[in-house]
């Protein structure tokens, strides 16, 4: 066996080589790569389960619930637990739920969930079916019925007004994959709902609450071995609004009624019926600057978003739809404010020494810029000259030509002093009233509007090839031309007229309460500036000027005929702004009562004709309902700017 012994050495060597290979690899795995392997082992076994927090509710100023949560029985399926007869189980499930099998299989393909996660396949399952599934659990492996919280709208439901405050309340939507990565949505999960508009979006961080976290050790089948720790979910905070449910409903209904009536009126300019295809109403509390009502039409039913939009609903809301029902016309859309703008022009002109409240001004039918020989004229809204009048009177009858001259003088002053630091006091004064910047109301995506100035014209050489021209200022003096404002901006400017010249940010939410009812944040009145006008100047505008507008002979005299003005004086201003090729935008802004102002009410109707025709009657009816007065029937407001 001499040779055999040397051959045994070969075998021994091979075996030694095996040990060397194993030891090397073990050294690498266990000593060099231990950190990574430990990390992966941990990922393997610890699962973090989150329990959703109940979202905060929204209440009106009287504590009536506007938005709450209700339970939806949701059927969820865990794909990996369906067992060997998965197909049959799903077919039976489709039978029980009375849905096509395709809906279920499609839901199961949802890429947002892992297979070990239960996937929702049906919501709002009737209790009968849910009980059946529970009782026959053995026949439905991997199928569970879970109660989940969804939004409900008790006020809308109780008052049979499905579109109640839709734009104010907003809606929820599924979080997007891209958002999950952004730091703004830290802590959100893949199936989370997030506020997508209105208060739901604005106050998302208060409403959403804090998720509960449970840490489990699980085995490879996903079965829980033991719990590591549990942090219960904390419900979201509740919003208590300044909004008055009753007035909100009145505002919505009267806006709608007014729009319907406008459609029976023939537009004088186009000769066709008014289209009246959109409108807005805003009611502010003159003392607190709270939003008492905010209506935008056309609206939508927020309930749609709870069940998921149908293709038709989706198209209606977000499709190529010029009505843009999802838009809040109070804060997100800008319009030329027309003659409702004149009080601010008058105040600016008086402050800058161009006008004097004790002087008289001529109100011709047409206005020509002094020294302009081109023949260009600016017409008054009425085709007759009204002679000399005070500024109060000019507001009452809404004489455009008086204001045109203020605009011209402002322009000439600019041209003479354009290198001075404050060459455009007119625009500055208007901006101090809040025009040209968001009002700061607690709603998302508020529009800024435009106050056109020399820079605006220089920035738009396509529109103004010859540089700044007086025409823009002239039209600005009657709130037309390039001037744009949201109804909300107009409302806060009127608020300043009503409250002694304070600029305040309007608020929908008065305060935020936690689940125990303690106030966690007070929003309330937020005034940020005192305007440089004396109370006498403001009184002159409101009491001498605007109060007369609703009186006989005023532009809204017809619209308010029969209204108990002696007990409830209403200061107001009509507005009619041209918007070619569309029909005129109809405006009415009111301060009520005129002497100790409590509310500012603004109505705007797109393609609504004259302010007196459509908007003024809307405001009148809202005021009647706010003060529990007998609501007058259809009002013929006449055709006055």
């Amino acid at each position, binding site marked *: 066996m001499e040779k*055999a012994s040397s051959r*045994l050495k070969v075998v*021994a060597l091979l075996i030694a080589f095996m040990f060397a290979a*194993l030891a090397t*690899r*073990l050294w690498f795995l266990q*000593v060099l790569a231990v950190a990574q392997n430990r990390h992966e*082992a941990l990922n393997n076994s610890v699962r973090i389960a989150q329990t959703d927090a109940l979202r905060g509710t929204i209440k009106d100023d009287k504590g009536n619930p506007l938005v709450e949560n209700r339970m939806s029985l949701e059927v969820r399926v865990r794909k990996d637990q369906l067992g060997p007869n998965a197909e049959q189980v799903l077919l039976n499930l489709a039978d029980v739920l009375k849905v096509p099998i395709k809906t279920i299989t499609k839901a199961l393909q949802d890429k947002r969930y892992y297979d070990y996660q239960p996937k929702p396949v049906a919501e709002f399952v009737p209790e009968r079916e849910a009980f059946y599934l529970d009782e026959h659990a053995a026949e439905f492996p991997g199928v569970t019925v879970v109660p989940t919280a969804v939004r409900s709208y008790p006020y809308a439901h109780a008052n049979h007004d499905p579109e109640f405050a839709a734009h104010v309340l907003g809606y929820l939507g599924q979080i997007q994959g891209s958002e999950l990565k952004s730091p703004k949505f830290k802590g959100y999960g893949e199936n989370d709902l997030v506020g997508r508009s209105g208060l739901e979006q604005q106050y998302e961080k208060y409403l959403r609450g804090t998720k509960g976290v449970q840490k489990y050790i699980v085995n490879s089948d996903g079965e829980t071995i033991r719990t590591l720790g549990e942090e219960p979910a904390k419900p979201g905070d509740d919003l208590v609004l300044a909004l008055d449910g009753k007035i909100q409903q009145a505002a919505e209904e009267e806006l709608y009624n007014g729009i319907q009536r406008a459609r029976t009126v023939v537009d004088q300019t186009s000769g066709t019926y008014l289209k009246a295809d959109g409108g807005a109403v805003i009611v502010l509390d003159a003392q607190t600057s709270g939003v008492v009502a905010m209506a935008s039409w056309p609206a939508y039913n927020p309930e749609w978003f709870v069940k998921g939009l149908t293709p038709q609903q989706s198209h209606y809301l977000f499709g190529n739809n010029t009505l843009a029902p999802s838009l809040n016309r109070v804060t997100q859309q800008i319009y030329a404010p027309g003659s409702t703008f004149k009080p601010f022009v008058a105040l600016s002109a008086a402050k800058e020494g161009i006008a004097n409240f004790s002087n008289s001004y001529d109100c011709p039918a047409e206005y020509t810029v002094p020294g302009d020989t081109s023949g260009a004229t600016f017409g008054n809204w009425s085709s007759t000259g009204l002679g000399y009048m005070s500024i109060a009177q000019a507001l009452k009858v809404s004489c455009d030509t008086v204001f045109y001259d203020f605009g011209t003088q402002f322009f000439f002053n600019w041209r003479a002093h354009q290198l001075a630091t404050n060459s455009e006091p007119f625009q500055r004064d208007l901006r101090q009233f809040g025009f040209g910047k968001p009002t700061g109301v607690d709603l998302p995506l508020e529009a800024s509007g435009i106050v056109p100035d020399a820079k605006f014209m220089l920035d738009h050489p396509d529109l103004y090839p010859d540089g700044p021209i007086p025409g823009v200022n002239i039209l600005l003096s009657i709130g037309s031309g390039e001037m744009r404002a949201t109804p909300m901006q107009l409302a806060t400017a009127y608020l300043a007229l009503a409250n002694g010249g304070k600029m305040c940010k309007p608020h929908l939410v008065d305060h935020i309460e936690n689940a125990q009812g303690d106030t966690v944040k007070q929003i309330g009145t937020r005034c940020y500036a005192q305007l440089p006008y004396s109370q006498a100047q403001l009184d002159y505008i409101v009491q001498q000027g605007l109060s007369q507008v609703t009186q006989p002979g005023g532009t809204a005299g017809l619209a308010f005929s029969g209204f108990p003005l002696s007990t409830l004086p209403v200061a107001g201003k009509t507005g009619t702004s041209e918007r070619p090729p569309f029909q005129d935008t109809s405006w009415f802004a009111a301060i009520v009562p005129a002497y100790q102002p409590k509310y500012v009410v603004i109505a705007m109707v797109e393609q609504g004709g004259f302010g007196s025709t459509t908007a003024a009657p809307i405001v009148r009816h809202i005021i009647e309902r706010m003060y529990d007065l007998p609501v007058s029937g259809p009002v013929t407001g006449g055709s006055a700017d």
Partner: protein
Amino acid sequence: MDLVAGRTFAEERRPIRHVDPVLILVTLALAVIGLFLIYSATSQTLRQDGLDPFDRVNKQVITMILGMVLLLVIATFDYRFFKVYSGFIYGATLVLLLLVHVPGLSSSVGGTSNYINIPGAALLQISPSEFAKIGLLVILAAMLSELRGPVPTVQDLVRILGVALLTIGLVFINVEIGSVIVLVAITVGMLVVAGTRPRHLLILATASILMIFLALQLGVIKDYQRERLLAFLDSSNTSADARYNLQQSEIAVGSGGTFGRGYLKGTQTNLDYVPEQHTDFIFTVVGEEFGFVGAMFVLGLYALLLWRAVRIAYLSKDPFGTYVAVGIASMFAIQMFVNVGMVIGIMPITGIPLPFLSYGGSAMLVNFIAVGMLLSIHMRRFK
């Protein structure tokens, strides 16, 4: 009568006085360690299912006792008994391999029928391929020890390979790639020691590779086997399932670190992340709970075992004993290498149990029988 240290020479050379204590101790140590590992791998799951957490351990203890009885019985017999009956033993294992295909006798595990259910003995499932290793080992040892020349001639090789291929072929039909590898290793190990010319070995290797390639191409290998093999060869081109096995066992062993996480504290082990953990993947428990140090200790025990086996091959008084010992050493070595290698990702996943540590009846018994044969050779090493 020669006297040695006051005793007669014959008495001094009585086999019972020459057992190999190291071999016995190492065998017992491995088997007992195996019990602890099986407990760690199975108790959690069993408890969860409401079963006795010691269920698997108890069964393994019974197998162990049975194995030790077999070891003692075989050690007391002269190993040359096996040479005499090598043809019969070989034939019997072939019959067992064929019995798997008799309907009603076989039980299917993992899609293949590798076990024979013995009627009335529910505890014992016999895995014929395990016993086939012993059968092949003794017949080859018998043939090689009777060679005329100093090295096997081509004719010898053809006869030997014919015998080996019969066993290997039957096991292959049963789709037990792991056992095929072990049988091939046994054959090659013995041929090397018999002095087969390197040229012939090369030709054999080439032929084998060609055959494996053909098997893959012709689809003789079942899908799951093929998948496991391919998972190892090319990890990017395989199903998640196959990769999962490999990944989880590597994570388990790797997360053990230098000193391990402590007995019963391995999360991978206790939570069933590693598949077939008490059987083929038992080494993950060693790696995770006892770390690099523990793994080296277990490998050290195997080194001792193999050293004793090779030493016995060297000490054997006749070529038959040498070849049997070499066959056994090859069998243990390849099983240990492929099994541990598979767990740590340097060998394909093939389903080879780890000698003495893995849970399982037949393999355990065969291992004890093999140690019994080694002992018998050692005890009778004097001419």
